C-alpha cells in the first residue's frame, strides 16, 4: 500500500515545481509592474489588422 507515498510525493513535487516557478517569476520582476503588460499584449493584433504589410514588425514586446 506504499503507493500512497508515491502519489503524495508526486503531488507535492508538482506543487513545489509551481511554487519555484512563482519564486522565479517574482525574482525576475514580473510582479513589479502589473499594468503595462496587460496593455502591451493587445498591441500586436491591432498592428496586424491595420497594416498587414508590417507583419514582420510584430515582435513588439521586449521582455528580457
Amino acid at each position, binding site marked *: *500500500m506504499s503507493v*500512497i*507515498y508515491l502519489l*503524495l510525493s508526486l503531488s*507535492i513535487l508538482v*506543487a513545489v515545481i509551481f*511554487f519555484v516557478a*512563482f*519564486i522565479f517569476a*517574482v*525574482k525576475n*520582476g514580473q*510582479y*513589479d*509592474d*502589473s*499594468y*503595462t503588460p496587460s*496593455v*502591451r499584449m*493587445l*498591441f500586436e493584433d*491591432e*498592428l496586424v489588422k*491595420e*497594416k498587414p504589410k*508590417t507583419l514582420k*514588425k510584430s515582435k*513588439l*514586446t*521586449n*521582455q*528580457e
Partner: protein
Amino acid sequence: MESSTCFHCGDLSDSSTIFYDDKTFCCQGCKTVYEIFSENDLTCYYDLQSAPGSTPKDIQGKYDFLTQQNIIDKLVEFDDGKSQIATLYIPQIHCSSCIWILENLNKLNKNISSSQVDFGKKTVRLQFNSQNYSLKEAVILLSSIGYEPYISLEDFSTGKSQVNRSLIYKLGIAGFAFGNVMFLSFPEYFEVKEFWLEQYKPFFRWLMFAFSLPVVFYSSQDYFISAYKGLRAKVLNIDVPIALGIIVLFLRSTWDIVFDLGSGFFDSLTGLLFFLLLGKFFQQRTYSFLSFERDYKSYFPIAITKISKAGQEQPIQVYDIKKGDRLLIRNEELIPVDGVLIKGRAKIDYSFVTGESDPVTKVSGDKIFAGGRQTSGSIEMEALKSVEQSYLTQLWGNDVFNNVKEDGFTTLTNLISKRFTIVILSIAFISTAFWLFVDSSKALNVFTSVLIIACPCAIALAAPFTLGNILRIFGKHKFYLKNATVIEQLAAINTIIFDKTGTITSNKQSTATYEGDVLSPSEALLLKNTLRGSNHPLSRTLYDLLEENDIIMLDQFEEHVGQGIQGVHLKDSIKIGSANFVGKTNETAALNTSVHISSNDAYKGKYTFYNSYRKGLSQLFNQLKKNYDLAILSGDNEGEMENLKKLLPARTKLLFNQKPDDKLEYIKHHQSEGAKVLMIGDGLNDAGALAQSNVGIALSENVNVFSPACDAILDAERFNSLSDFINLSKSAIKIVKWAFVLSFMYNVVGLSFAITGRLEPVVAAILMPLSSISIVVFTTITTNLAARKLKKNEK
C-alpha cells in the same frame, strides 16, 4: 475650420492652424512629431487613442550635461562598453499610445535595441548601443517626439534603488502552505474512520508540520519583529497578540502530533498568516508614479552651464558649483544657487519659493536667490553660495523634515489592541486557574485554546481592508494619499489652513477691472491689436480678457523692455505699460498689479489685475466653517484682503506676507494649543508647513508635475470635494469600529468553545477564515456605500 482640435495633441488650434496631410495641427512642433511618425510607419500611434501627443518643447543646449561622464555613470544602470541601459522618468506617459510609441523607439533609431515602459511608474527602460549612440542623443530623440524625460538632482543622489519584494514572497509561501495543509487536513475534518486513512494519519500530520515551518519562520517574521519592538517600547500593539497566537498555535500543534493527541491547528495557522499578509498587501499598494517624499532635489536641475574664465560654456554638476563661479541660466531654467546677476534682463518667477505670483524684474548687480525660474531670455550670474547653503535649501535643515509623522500617531487598531491584549490574557489565566481546580489535565489545553482562538486576525484585518479600499476610492476621485494612516489623521483634524496663491486661486485665470475714461471703439480696437504683438504675460492675460475685435495691421509696433508697448495705426497711437511709461508720474504705489493706457499721449485709465478664485470656493468654506477653524496664509501682499473678506465666512483668519518658516511656526503654534492641523498648499514655499501639519495636502493642477513633500496630493479640479473627502474619512473610522464589534462577536463565540475546553481543530479552522472573510466583505460593502455620496456630488 476656425476652431478645430490638433490631430497630435488635441489642443484647440486657433488662427495659427497648420494644415498638413489633410490634418490640422496647432503648432509647428506637433506637425513635426507627426512627420517623424509618418515617415517611420508609426502612425498607429494615432489609431490607438485620438490626439495622444504632447507638444515638444525647445531644448536647445538643455541636455549638454549628459556628455559628462560622472553624470552618465549615475544615470546608467548597466554598461558593458558596447551597450548601456538607462531608466528615464517621463511624466507625459498617460495612455496606451504612449506605451506603444515608446516601445517602438527602435524604429526611430536603429541604435536603440529595446525599450520597455513601466506605466505605473511612468518610466521607460532603454537599452542602446553605446558605441554609436549616447544617452544625450536618446534624450533628445525622446524630447523631439514630445516625451521629454525629467532628470533632476534627485537622480544624482539616490542612485539605483532596490525593489523590496519580500512581502510577495511571504504571501506566496503562506498561500502555498495554506492550500496544501488544507488538503492534508481534509480527511480528519470528517472523522471518517477509514482504515487506510487511520494508517497514514501520522504521515499526513508530519507533512503539515513541514509545510508550516517556512510559514512560521519566514512569512511571520514581520509580526515577531514588530511585536518585539512594541514590547521594548512598552507598547502593546496589535502584533503582540498576533505573535503570541502564532507561537502558541505552532507549539500546541506540534505537541498534539508528537503525543498523538489530535491533528493540530496547522490549517488555522497557515490560513491566519495568509489572510493577514493579504491584508498587508492590499494596504501597501499605493501610487508608484507619485512621490510623497520630494524635497528641493527633485525640483533642481542635475547640471547647469558654467562659463569658464576663457568665456567657454561647459556643463557643471550642480553640487560642484563653488562661490565665484559664473553661470549661464537659460530661459525657463531654475536658478540653483544664491548669487548676483551680472548680465542680461532677469525676470524671475519666485512662485516656488514665496508663493508670490508675479515675476520679479532684476537688473545687473541685484541679488538673486536659488529656486527662482528665469522667464525671459538667458542671464549670467555669479554664485555667492553653494547649493546646500542657499536660502531656499536651508529650509530643509529644519527638524520637521527628519521626523516621521506616523511615529507620533497611535492608530485605532493599536489603541484597541492594548485593551484587547490585556483582556485576553486575563481570560486565559482566569480560565486556566479555574480548570486547575476542576480538572487539571485540561488546564493547559484551555490556556492554549484561548490564545489560539483569540488571535486577533479579524481585528488586524478590519483597518487594512477598510482604509485600503477608501484609499483606492480616493484615488479614483483624484485624491492620492501617501498611506492609510493619513485617513485616520484626516478624520481627526479640527483646523484647516489654506495657502493662497495657486491653492485657493487658480493659476490659469485672473480677472482685471478697468478704471478711468471709457475707451472709444477705435481705441479698443487698437488696444487689442497692440496687445496681440506682445508676449509679455500681462499682455497675454489682458488680450484673452478683452472682447473679440477685428484684426488690423499696425503701422508701427515697439516693445520697450520692462516698461510697456506702443502701437501706431494711421493717426492714432496707443501706449500700454507702467505708469511712468504712459506719462502718468504721480501714481501712488498700489498693491495690485496694474497696466496703464494712454491714447495719443492722453492718459486714459488702467486695468487692475485680481486673482481669480477657484469656483465654489465660498461654498466650500461655508461647508467647512461649521466644524473647523479656517485660516489663510499667503506669501503675497495684502492687495487681495478686501476681496477675500467679501468671499469667505467672517471668522476666517487671513494672514499675509508669510515667509516659508513663518507658515511653519504658525502651524507649530496652533498645534501646541492642541489643534490638529490640515494644511493645503501647492508650492515649495509651503513645504515646511506641509511637513509640520498633521496632514499636509499638496494641491496640483497636474498630478504628474511635481508637488512638495506631503501626505496627500489632490487634483485641483476636485478641490471643491475637500469637505466630502474629510467626511468620508470620518465614515471610514466608523466602519473600522463596527468591524471591530463584529470581530469581537466572533471572539466571544470562539472563546466559549475555548474556555469550556471543547475547541476542536475543525472549529478553529472554520471560525478563523469565516471571521476574516466576513470582515473583508463587511468593510468592502460598507466603504463602497459610504463612497456613494462622493460620486453623487461629482455630477
